[in-house]
């Protein structure tokens, strides 16, 4: 059994070994050479590239890339809603809010600099800043917690 995350949803899927490959919910998945796969759903056969890197599976199928998170049993809880972490390594150019501030959806909270560009972290909803973990000039790693915003009642 494997748990997979797409967007906000978590899917539980059960691959069963069958012949040279697996069956998942009636879909046959068969390995070919060198990272390629055949996926058969009824009459429709697709050829795909696929690989797993860390906690993410990557695949290219029917002309599209998909990137899906794997949730390992026993792994820590997923990131809390309202926590903002650095989407990539970079420098903190500006912190635009302080703990306790009320913020509105779309309001800029923080400016990061990475790859020679400025990136603005904005609030996705109305709320209140409950913690700020960085200050101007800090270097941050990808995934590092920047600040936390608590949603206000709608």
């Amino acid at each position: 059994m494997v748990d997979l995350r797409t967007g906000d949803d978590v899917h539980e899927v059960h691959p069963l070994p069958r012949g040279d490959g697996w069956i998942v919910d009636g879909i046959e998945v068969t390995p070919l050479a060198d990272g390629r796969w055949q996926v058969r759903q009824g009459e429709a056969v697709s050829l795909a590239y696929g690989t797993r890197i860390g906690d993410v599976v990557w695949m290219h199928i029917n002309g599209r890339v998909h990137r899906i998170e794997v949730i390992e049993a026993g792994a820590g809880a997923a990131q809390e809603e309202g926590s903002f972490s650095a989407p990539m390594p970079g420098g903190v150019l500006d912190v635009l809010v302080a703990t306790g501030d009320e913020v509105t959806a779309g309001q800029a909270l923080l400016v990061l600099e990475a790859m020679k560009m400025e990136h603005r972290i904005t609030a996705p909803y109305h709320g209140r800043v409950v913690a700020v973990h960085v200050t101007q000039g800090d270097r941050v790693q990808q995934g590092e917690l920047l600040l936390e915003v608590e949603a206000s009642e709608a």
Partner: protein
Amino acid sequence: MRSVLVANRGEIACRVLRACKEAGLRAVSVHAEDEVGAMHTEMSDLSLSLEGSGAPAYLNGDAIIAAALANDVDGIHPGFGFLSERAGFAQAVLDAGLIWIGPSPSAIERMGDKMTARITMREAGVPVIPGEEIEIEPSGDEKADLEATLVAVRSASERVGFPLLLKASAGGGGKGMRAVESADGLDEAVRGARREAIAAFGDGRVYLERLLRGARHVEVQVLADAHGRTVHLGERECSVQRRHQKVFEEAPCAVVSEDQRQRMGEAAIAAAEAVDYVGAGTVEFLMEDDGTFHFLEMNTRIQVEHPITELVTGVDLVREQLRIAAGEPMSVPELAMRGHAIEVRIYAEDAANGFLPSIGPLAVFRPPTGPGLRLDTGVREGDDVSPSYDPMLAKLIVHAPSRDEALQRMRRALDEFVILGTTTNVAFLRDLCDLDAVVSATTSTTTLDDAYPNGWEVQPASEAVMALAAVLASSRGITRGDNDGPSGPASPFLSLNRRYP
């Protein structure tokens, strides 16, 4: 000229180094400490190490000139970005007795400063966008300069009117540029644009232009040699932009008539001749629905989207740059455009998340092949995408007899392009090919904002995707960095070959 150093990295360095090799020139590359073995070093006969990592290494003009002098180099090609539009660097190259593969420092200076360029063009009779230069002499005190600029911009904005574009005079590539809808956002825009421009170019001066909504970005390629010949090579349309950066470019522009091409070409030649231009350059225009066109800026270097002009004209622009720099006459026949070419820029970025740059290993990187395709890439499978550099990885270019066929070919090519391990904009580019405005050739610089007011979204995962994902997830997978060797990303297929528990 027998030996050329390419003062750049990534795909444009590869492009130029290959041209040098083809021309029988010794091709010399440079690399920062974090780019040993990068693709562009592989393209060269000799690669010289620069001190430091990231962009600063490639911006150290003195070190590059010293390396050139110490290694029997005759000429320096700057590519685009980095030092390509720094007149001071061009002058230093010439002062060191080397050949500068580009226009004169004075041409770079007069065109590089966008305010000066506006004024020069206005005086040469080339139409410019209604707007106003903000002439504040830098005092060295950023706080004072910012204050003076804010005051002047507020006043000028009343004459120019909203919406307007605030642009860094030293800017380019979307850096230091802000669209301002109303007086409310003006101050913050000035602060951001200045900060970005000072960081990127060391020069925070700005000017205002009326924001021409719904206009097309149409640019004309020019070539001028030292024998007095200046030609234009037709136009490119590059209206489709995200964050003021081009992502989808085509040649010719579907709505430019032969007569219009002639007039824009003549304006472009006039612009080049106004600054005694020698080399390859691009004169950018904004074109309104009625065909009226306004000078936007001139880029005094080879441009990212030069391949589409090469495909429709049959001219090798970089090879011509080398000829011109060597003092030879250019070998360009009379303009005859054939077919239609489209370029898309492959960025390591998350199109579904505000086009935020992404990083990671290129665990699988399998470009499409077949007829009518060109790939200019600076990376190959196994490389790492680092946050230290521009996120543009490669350019995919198609050529076909007609615009419809070129679009069909681009769709096919993007469907085939496999990149795993790093998020790229390939799926976004594929969706662009089906966008009404693109299909009907009615693109403008606001096409993307209009098409995706709430941002672009990834297609949801199908049942087949989830099934394959489940199988892949069951494999052991790779944890990056757990190899005992010093090499980069592990083979993506490691896990597959050991798939059975």
